């Protein structure tokens, strides 16, 4: 494959890769910058944050985080964690058998059922919010974490079913057949063969569900008020501050984003799959 001695790649070939790498890094910096700036500002004093020439060098302080906790952000974070965690647990409990019945031992019209799940995601939440609100009011379930858990479960269930099904389909058929030949009952097959094999899939699905419910705002805004308001509702108080509390806002926003950022970074290999309901890997 050796070219004549005088062969040298054209300039474009040699510098092209470096050019594109530079472009990539510049774009990456632009996209990431707002997140970075938010995190930096959280460690500033209001005086450092509210300046017309951005302060890059400053002595970091935890003052803002202390202030946010003094304002009572704790219960909001707790409510968010409870709503996200509990709804995800219920989702997995409901979605795993459903995904099983749509993949390993499929029901007769599994295709229709699968598309029913998908179609509920196409229903805008505004189309259901009024009856849901009235029902919650009638049952005395306004401003209750339980209501959010029930609704977040419904919100994430279709995603989880589709995603888990795609993991179930990856289990080689031979493994299941071997288990059956060895005389495993359905229960044994599920407990000792299937569940261990989809464990990474269950974890990835759980992360996606936690991310979506942690970030949910519309239902939390309309169905909670004082006792069970979640983190995004806490941030509503900053809308009209006109920058007066920018550093404090940055601290609260950083607290609100940090858990999901960490989980998303950890789960990034599975992120595309989760976001596409298992359609791409």
């Amino acid at each position, binding site marked *: 494959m050796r070219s004549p001695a005088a062969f040298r790649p054209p300039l474009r070939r040699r510098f092209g890769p470096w050019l594109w790498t530079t472009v990539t890094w510049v774009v990456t910096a632009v996209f990431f910058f*707002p*997140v970075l700036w938010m995190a930096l500002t959280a460690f500033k004093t209001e005086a450092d944050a509210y300046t017309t020439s951005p302060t890059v060098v400053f002595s970091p302080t935890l003052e803002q985080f202390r202030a946010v906790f003094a304002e009572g952000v704790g219960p909001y974070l707790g409510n968010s964690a409870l709503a996200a965690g509990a709804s995800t647990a219920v989702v997995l409990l409901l979605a795993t058998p*459903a995904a099983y019945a749509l993949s390993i031992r499929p029901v*007769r019209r599994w295709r229709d059922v699968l598309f029913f799940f998908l179609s509920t995601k196409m229903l*805008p939440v505004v*189309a259901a919010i009024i009856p849901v609100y009235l029902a919650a009011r009638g049952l005395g379930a306004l401003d209750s974490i339980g209501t959010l858990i029930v609704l977040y479960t419904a919100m994430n269930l279709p995603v989880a079913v589709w995603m888990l099904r795609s993991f179930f389909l990856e289990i080689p058929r031979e493994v299941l057949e071997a288990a059956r030949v060895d005389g495993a009952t359905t229960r044994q097959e599920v407990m000792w063969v299937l569940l261990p094999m989809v464990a990474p899939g269950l974890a990835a699905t759980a992360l996606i569900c936690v991310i979506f419910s942690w970030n949910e*705002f519309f239902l939390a805004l309309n169905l909670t008020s004082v006792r069970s308001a979640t983190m995004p509702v806490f941030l509503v108080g900053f809308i009209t501050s006109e*920058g007066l509390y920018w550093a404090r806002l940055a601290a609260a926003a950083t607290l609100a984003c940090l858990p999901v950022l960490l*989980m998303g970074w950890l789960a990034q290999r599975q992120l595309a799959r989760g976001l596409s309901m298992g359609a791409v890997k």
Partner: protein
Amino acid sequence: MAVGALPPAGPTATAGPLPARRPPRRAGWRRRWPLAPALLWLVVLTQLPFVFTVLFSFQSRNLLRPGAERWVGLANYANVFTDTVFRAALLTEIELTVLAVAIAMALGTALALLLDRRFPGRGVARTLLISPFLVMPAVAGLLWKTAMFDPVFGLVNVAASWAGVQGTDFTSRFPVASVVTVLVWQWTPFMMLIVLAGLRSQPADTLEAARVDGAGPWATFRWITLPYLRRYIELGVLLGVIHLVNTFDVIYMMTQGGPGTRTTNLPYYIYQRAFLGFDVGQSSALGVVTVAGTLVAAALALRLLFTAFTGVRAGDR
């Protein structure tokens, strides 16, 4: 449906359902019961409320006047279609969704191509790039409104002042562009991930064959990669549309639908009518119209893309 059409999710994937020997009736039920709880949960919490929304949409019903409900036939719908704010909200809805999805997809595809090369720190770049999508949408709205677009100390204004432009109040002077910027910032990483997954799954031998046949990078992209990516792009657009027609958080945090009603989209308008105006009948009719619109939009998005891509294919021959 695009989602079902992708190979990994389709019925032909690795394991596939076990051969469907027609099960006897009892075995049929044994197969069905694992589905029951999930289906019941969804029917009760999504379909049932929607049925009530449809019922309410034929009623005059206001939370401030309990006990005064009465059936009014199509009056709420008549009001919807003569309501100028609704028409404006519908246009805003289309404007926001189309702009955000189109720009995010174009940028996302470009970024995916950039990330599909080997270069130092690729993993780090990818991690940083997905971050905007993970930021809580409510935070994204506040963050851009405060840190980026603030007329006094917003960083976009700082950058603009280097160019000699001072103190622009972006969110009130360019409200739609401001909201679209935030949506694009959040959704570009999503599109990037979907397209990147497509690029990764591209068979290497096809690309190799194209190279051997003397195709340059551009020709390879235009005639091999892009057609291959088609269904990934379709999937990204479809999922983007489904999510972005529900845009609420960013608008609520950033512009509150204003100035005036300039950035009021359908979800925000329904929210206002229902939870600030307490007009259940009217907002239910709006909700029903929105659902119909969403279904049409999702179908249309698919159809348009399909035509666009078949156009490309026709030029090929």
